[in-house]
C-alpha cells in the first residue's frame, strides 16, 4: 500500500495529512482500456478492478496501465519480467466476509471499504483530500472525510512514506 505524506506550514503550526493510494477501483478505469493484453477487468458483481497476471505483458515490454492511471496504482516489482500487481481489496478476505487487511490493521482507524452507497451514507460523499485530485475521466470509487488545512498554507512537500532514503 502506498501512502503519501503531505506537509505544510511552519512550526509550531505545521500541518500533516496522509493520503492513502491503493487502487481506487475507478468507475471508468483507464488501465482497462490501456491494457493491450486485456489483462485488467472490472468485476461485474462488485466493481473491483482485477489483473490477470498471466496475461500481463510485463514490466519491460509494456507498463501501459501505469502510464494511463492518473493515480499511479499499478505496481511492478524490481525484476524486468515483473507482472502488474495492485490492490484487489483483499478478494480472499472479502470472500470470507472480512474487511480488507489494511482496514483491520490501521491503528488510526482511517480506512474503510465496502459498497459505495454504504460508505456514502456513513461518511458523506467527499472528493477532497490533501494531495488528491479528482479525475472525472476515470471517476475513482473513493470518498474522503479528509483532514482540512484551515490555514490554507502552501504545500511544502508530498512524498511517499516511509521515506526510504535520508
Amino acid at each position, binding site marked *: 500500500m502506498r501512502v503519501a505524506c503531505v*506537509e505544510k*506550514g*511552519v*512550526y*509550531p503550526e*505545521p500541518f*500533516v*495529512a496522509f493520503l492513502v493510494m491503493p487502487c481506487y477501483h475507478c468507475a471508468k478505469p483507464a488501465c482497462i482500456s490501456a491494457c493491450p493484453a486485456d489483462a485488467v477487468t472490472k468485476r461485474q458483481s462488485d466493481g473491483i478492478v482485477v489483473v490477470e497476471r498471466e496475461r500481463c505483458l510485463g514490466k519491460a515490454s509494456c507498463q501501459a496501465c501505469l502510464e494511463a492511471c492518473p493515480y499511479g496504482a499499478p505496481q511492478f516489482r524490481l525484476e524486468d519480467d515483473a507482472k502488474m500487481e495492485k490492490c484487489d481489496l483483499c478478494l480472499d478476505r472479502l470472500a470470507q466476509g472480512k474487511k480488507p487487511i489494511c482496514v483491520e490493521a490501521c*491503528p*488510526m*482507524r482511517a480506512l474503510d471499504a465496502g459498497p459505495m452507497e454504504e460508505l456514502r451514507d456513513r461518511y458523506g460523499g467527499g472528493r477532497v483530500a490533501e494531495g488528491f485530485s479528482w479525475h472525472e475521466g476515470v471517476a475513482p470509487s473513493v470518498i474522503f472525510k479528509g483532514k482540512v488545512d484551515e490555514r490554507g498554507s502552501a504545500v*511544502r512537500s508530498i512524498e511517499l512514506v*516511509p521515506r*526510504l*532514503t*535520508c
Partner: protein
Amino acid sequence: METQRDRVVRTVCGIEDGVSCGILAHVRDGVLVKVEPADFPDGRFRHICARGLCTVKLVYHPDRLRHPLRRVGERGEGRWERISWDEALETIADKFRKIGTSYGYESIAFATGQVATSALMMIYLRLASALQATSVSLAGFGDAAGPCGDLLSYGVVFGEFYTSGMESPRSCVLWGANLAETHPIRWRTIRDARENGAKLVVIDPRFTTTASKADEYISIRPGTDAALALGVMRVIFEKGLEDKDFISRYTVGPFLVRGDDRAFLRERDVIPGGSEKFMVWDTERHSPGLWDDPKVRPALSGVHHIAGIECRTAFQSLRDLADLYPLHRVSEITGVDSGTVERLAELYAGLRPVASYRGWGLQRTFHGDLSYRAVTTLAAVTGNIRLEAHRGFKLNKKAFIKAGEGRFRSMPIMKLYQAVLTGHPYPVKALWAAAHNFMNQNPDNDKILKEILPRLELIVVADMFMNSSAHYADIVLPTCSFFERPDLIPPFEPFNPYLQLQPKVIEPLYESRSDLEIVNGLASRLGLGGHFSRSAEQWIELLLCSGHPSVAGVTLERLRHGPVELPPYEAPLFLTPSGRLEFYCESMRPFGQELPVYREPLEGRKSPLAERYPLSMLSTHTKYRKHSMFANVPWLRRLDPEPVVEMNPSDAEARHISDGDMVSVFNDRGSVKLKARPHEGMRGTVVNIRQGWWHSDYREGTHQALTHSAVNPAQEAAFEPNAALYDTLVEVARAEER
C-alpha cells in the same frame, strides 16, 4: 518430534513493552513461518505491531549467536574463540569464586531485563539470592522517575490507570506521550474516546504523529511540564473551579501542615498523649478535628494557629505554590502562551472526565518525578482521577526468588556507576547482563567505556546477538528467543489485563539456551544445584500458588487453554501512607519537594552550559524498535534506514546544515556523527535522535555518549534515581567543520 506438518500455536509476543499481545505462531516442519494477532476475550486487545510481525526475522537472523564465545583480544577488539557451554560456565564459575573470595559475593552484579514482563527471567534474582550477590534494578535507565512520582502520589509505582483509565472521557490530554506511534494499544482507547466525541490535546516539544491527529497541539519547552500544570492550577483556583468535594474526600488536601517543620499536624501535636492521626480544621466547631471523624467538616483552605503552631491545609499550601505561577511567568518558563494555559484550565474543569496520559518521555528530565506528580495533582484537584482501586496481581515471587537463607542486594542501575567507580557502598567487579544492552541504552557512554569497564574483572553478556554490550564482554552466551522457551507473562494494567502462558513454539536454534537453563547450569557448577532443579513448567506452577486472590483458581492447565483475566478483588483505593492521594508528601521534605514544585531541568536554558551547547537533545522512541531490539532487522531497516538527528529548519540554517548533511552532535561528554534531518515538526532549539540504534549504526560514537549519569537524590530516597536522558544540552555542526 513433529507429527503434523503445520501447526498454529497461541503464544505471546515477547517484546518487553508491557503490552504482551497474544500472537498466533504458524509453524511448518518445525520452522516458524509467520505470526499474526490472536484474539482475546475482550477484542480490543487483539493487536500486533510492525515489530511483532518482524519477530520471525529475529529468530532466523543470520547474525544470531550460535555458540558460546570467549574474548581472545582486548575488550572491544572483536576477536573471539568458540568455546563449549561446559567451558563457558566453568570459566564463569571459577571467576565468580575468585571475585567472591576477594571482594565478597555482592561484588557480582546481575543486570537482567524483562523481569517484569517475562516471569522466568526472575531466575537471575534467585541466582543472585543463592549467591548473596547483587541484582541491578534497571528501571533507572529511563523509567524510574514516573514510578517514583506515582509511588508518592498513589502508593503504586505505575499509576497511569488513575489518570487515564476512566471510561468514556470527554477529553484526553497527552503530556509528552506519542501513543499513536509508540503505544498502539493505548492509542486505541483514545480512538474510542475520539469516536465518542472526545477532544484530544497533545502537549509535546515535537509535532508527533499523535500531535498531527489532535484537536489542539501545544508546543512546550522540554522539562517544563510541572510549571505548566501549576499555571493551569492557578487559573483553576482563581476561578474557584477546583473539585472541592473530591479534594476533601480523596486527597490529603484538608490535612493541616505545620508551618515549622512542614509535617502533617498529628493529634499528638495538639493533645499530649494523642495519636498519630492527621488533623484537619473543623469549620463547624472552629477547632482542630480528626481527619477520620465523620462529624467534622474539614476546611480546605486557610491558615490556623493551633497549640502555638501556624498551620495551613495541604491544599492551601498547594494554592500558595500555584500563586507563584501567574500566566506571564508560566509562558516565560514553558513557552506556552497565556490563552492556551487558560484554555487548558477550562478543559480540565469543564470537559470532564479528562483522561491525562503521561508519556514515558515526561519523566526523562532530571526532575521528571515532579512532572508526573504535577500532572497527577492537576488531575486530582479537578476530580479527574479514576476512583477504582488499582488491582495489582501477586505471583508467588518470594518463593521463586528466595533460595534458602540467601538474600540478594539490590542496586539501582544509576548507582552502579558509583559502586564500580568508587567502591561505595561496595565494589562491583563482575557484571552479567541478560536481556539488557547496557552499552547501548545507558547514559554517559564514554564514562562506561573508559572508566567503568576497565574496573570490571568479568563481563558476561547473554543475548541473541553480538550487540553493543556483547562486543565488550569477556564471555558471550547465546540465548534463545521467546519462541524457543516457555514463560509466564504477567498482566500489565492498563495495557493488558490478562495473565498468559508463553509456550515453547519451536526448539532452540543452534546451541542457544534459555536463561533458565543457563542459570541452572551455572548454579550446579557453583554447588547450588539443589536450588535450581525445577523445570520451567514447575516454576510457573510455583509462581501461581501465591494464595493471593488475584490469582485464585489460576493454574498452568487453565493457562494452556488461553489467556486468563484475573478475578477482581477488594483492594484499598490508594496505597499511600495516608491512604489518600498525596499531592503533599511528608517524606519529600528534606528535598523541598513535599509539593510538586517546578525545578529547572539540570541542563536547561538557564544552565551555564547553554551558552556553548544551546540545543536540548531528546532521544525518543519509534515504532520500529523496542530499545535496541529490532535495529538489526532488515524489514524494519527498509522503513527506518539509519539514525538521523531531527532539528528545526531555522536551527539547521543557522548552522549551514541541509537535509542529509553529515553532522556532529556534541557536548563536553562526547559526540556522535550522523545525518541531519531538518523538518517543521521540531520545536526550535530542540533536537532529537530516535534511540535504539547500535553503536555500529552510527558513523561515529553514539547518542548515549552525550547523555549524563547525574543521580537525583530525591528520586533515590523515594524509589530509585532515573537517567535524565532527555535533559541533555548539545551543539550540532556540519561534520567537516569540527
